[in-house]
């Protein structure tokens, strides 16, 4: 499987202030991608920025994938200046993907801000393989930070909107809503967003006895498991503390394997 692709940019839209959606056309990439995986984008041909930028795969089409990203620094700023018709070098798909085990009547997604990015693909996959539309908690700072609502609606999901300033949906945090949800039968939670949110989602899931998978982030250099830059302390095998590579053992982790106490508040 080839993992380096010259992709044609076939769509590039501003979807909210500072947020863009980009469609990367490449059949090979599309065919091998699964929900939860990510790509590493070469945002410049020179040495600035030096490293590629990791981005979750948002949706998987027959001939390409889309990404959803927020401009926050130099790399994403350059990315945002690229035009439809230009090409970009994409490495991927990388990392593992969301497990969708059988026998769970309830799939619950908790997305904070740009953390929504990997979920459209996941919802499509769950619908396809399990036929159950997941329930979604879509949280953000304000109305502008709630992305993909329409897509999820079209897919038939029940959506809880939450904003910190109350400008849309309920006022508060994603976890406020999560705590109030009571499901019947086995439940799986998928989450992605700011680390403090993920930690709290994990805690609530532990209390409720729910399985929780999180898409985690870390500074990455290689995206392929060789540099050992992106690790998090985890306990994946019995009695064995390890440094798990977010790019290889992750980015999707059962939140119970992460040693949260050792991560601190980065």
């Amino acid at each position, binding site marked *: *499987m080839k*993992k*380096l692709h010259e992709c044609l940019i076939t769509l590039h839209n501003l979807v909210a202030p500072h947020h863009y959606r980009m469609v990367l056309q490449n059949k090979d990439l599309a065919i091998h991608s699964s929900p939860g995986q990510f790509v590493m984008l*070469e945002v410049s041909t020179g*040495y*600035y*920025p*030096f*490293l*590629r930028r990791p981005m979750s795969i948002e949706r998987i089409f027959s001939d390409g994938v889309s990404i959803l990203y927020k401009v926050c620094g130099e790399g994403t700023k350059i990315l945002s200046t690229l035009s439809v018709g230009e090409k970009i070098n994409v*490495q991927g798909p990388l990392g593992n993907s969301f497990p969708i085990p059988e026998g769970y009547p309830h799939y619950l997604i908790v997305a904070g801000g740009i953390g929504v990015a990997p979920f459209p693909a996941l919802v499509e996959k769950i619908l396809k393989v399990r036929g159950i539309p997941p329930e979604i908690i879509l949280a953000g700072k304000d109305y502008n930070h709630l992305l993909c609502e329409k897509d999820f609606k079209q897919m038939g999901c029940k959506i809880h909107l939450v904003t910190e300033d109350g400008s849309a949906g309920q006022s508060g945090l994603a976890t406020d809503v999560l705590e109030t949800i009571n499901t019947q039968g086995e439940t799986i939670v998928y989450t992605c967003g700011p680390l403090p949110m993920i930690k709290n989602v994990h805690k609530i899931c532990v209390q409720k006895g729910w399985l929780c998978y999180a898409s985690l982030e*870390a*500074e*990455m*250099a*290689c*995206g*392929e*498991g*060789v*540099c*050992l*830059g*992106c*690790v*998090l*302390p985890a306990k994946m095998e019995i009695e064995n*503390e*390890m*440094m798990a590579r977010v790019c*290889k053992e992750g980015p999707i982790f059962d939140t119970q394997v992460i040693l949260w106490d*050792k991560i601190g508040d*980065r």
Partner: protein
Amino acid sequence: MDVSLQISIGKLILKNPVTVASGTFGYGEEYAEYFDISELGAVTIKSLTLKPRLGNVPPRIVETPAGMLNAIGLQNVGIETYLKYKLPFLREKKCTIIANIYGTSIEEYVQLAEQLEKEGGADAIEMNLSCPNVHDAKSKFKCPLIAQSPEWVEKYTYAVRSITKLPLIVKLSPNVADITEPALSAEKGGADAVSIINTLLGMAIDVNTRKPKLRNVVGGLSGPAIRPVALKMVWDVSRTVKIPVIGMGGICSASDALEFLIAGARMIAVGSYLFRDPLVPMRIIQGLRDYCLTHNIDDINKLVGSVIVE
């Protein structure tokens, strides 16, 4: 015209002068998905220690202008796991293996080298005497590296030399006033080659939190940013010692590799740029061949040290 890219390090003959820098290629498995890694002159593996190491607390990586800082702290599987689970893959692929080793004492280096030789774990050994990331930057900020003391370099080299017949490479640090001194010591100690250079000590601070961007505070700078520094040191060392120099530091292209060979490196290693382009070693091998053809050079060894200084 036929171009020979073959070079030798000690008694080891390599089909071309291109390897990868320790710590940027794991044990070869991952990038084997990108190209046939047996095409490399050699695979240099991540530093091995006697026991597995977890490495430093993250964050371990920061991007910098035209480079990066890392403070991995020698996370590795340890020699046992390497021999059992990583080596068979490299052997099956028919790779020439340079095993990079790190010890906290002469005895550990000796033990690592002995075990590697006994169990066929390496075709050459590279002693990492220059890792900047294994000391606690907070308590002892002078981070003394073996490679900063010519005397120690000789002792360490000699000890390992005495117990192994494997070609022996000593990897030195740029964090010195004059790198020719430890290089001479390595030669005197019996090294078959020196690797020039490991990373430069560096640091970055998040001005909003006022915390260092690396949890370990200090890290090692690599990438094209340091290339001019590495090249100068390769030039210095190759005019000083008689053993081959393996040049590294910011090599991103065949042209960069040629600069190092022309400056005096017998072999080169690609490090951080692999993270941008895993295929770069293949591009370099092809580029070296093309250059030799264009410039009518039938043997790459003729290029080594051919810099013209007026």
